[in-house]
């Protein structure tokens, strides 16, 4: 076993143990503790945005900037793919 593989194995075991312990220390499944923000959104989504779909009201109204950044990332990815292959096809 080379030195690189040994370091990789140590890193992998430490990460695995850390993640497993942290998964055991999470809150019980189905009983989240802090629910204030989501309760507020569920109660006011129909009155403020007129939407019957709570997820859509979050995506396009309460967190619109998030969707704007996402659209920017999609645009950048398409531009990058087209740039790479246009240069390659010549």
């Amino acid at each position, binding site marked *: 076993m080379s030195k690189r593989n040994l370091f990789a194995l140590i890193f992998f075991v430490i990460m695995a143990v850390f993640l497993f312990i942290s998964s055991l220390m999470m809150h019980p499944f189905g009983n989240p503790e802090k629910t204030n923000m989501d309760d507020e959104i569920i109660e006011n989504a*129909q*009155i*403020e*945005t*007129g*939407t*019957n*779909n709570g*997820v*859509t*009201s979050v*995506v*396009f*109204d309460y967190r*619109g*900037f998030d*969707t*704007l950044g996402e*659209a920017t990332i*999609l*645009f950048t*990815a*398409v531009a990058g*793919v*087209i740039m790479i*292959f246009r240069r*390659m*096809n010549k």
Partner: protein
Amino acid sequence: MNGMSRIVKTIASITFPLVMIYGLYIIAHGHLTPGGGFQGGAVVASGCAMILIAYGSVWTLGKIKEKNLSILESVGAICFITLAILGLGFGTVFFKNFLIGSEIIFGIIPSFGSTISNINTAGVIPLMNFAVGLKVIAGLFGIVLIMAYASTRRDKY
């Protein structure tokens, strides 16, 4: 990739309109039922990818150019940002839902609780769904088309 057999082409041609109708339904009813611009756009783009696989990338690139797809995606992005800036103009803040409560279109506020779905609600959200749907259709299909075409050009590797 030069296209597949006649059976695959026939089945793809029959199935393609159904996939398109389903995806456009998901986009148009995004504010009432599960779905929205991203999900419906992904459905329509996968339908277009089915046509691409059945007929081959050279035939598909003869039908629609990648430059037109880029223009379509830019139109979707510009519509989305324009709707957001109109919220700044007619309302108070960026991304303000300025059509809600007005009498023009999509202006009805539903009553609280479980309601029957009315498509004439939700303000600018259906318009934003259409803009984002157009953007996702053009973007994903453009990526798939250009990657398929680039991997068929040189067969010597």
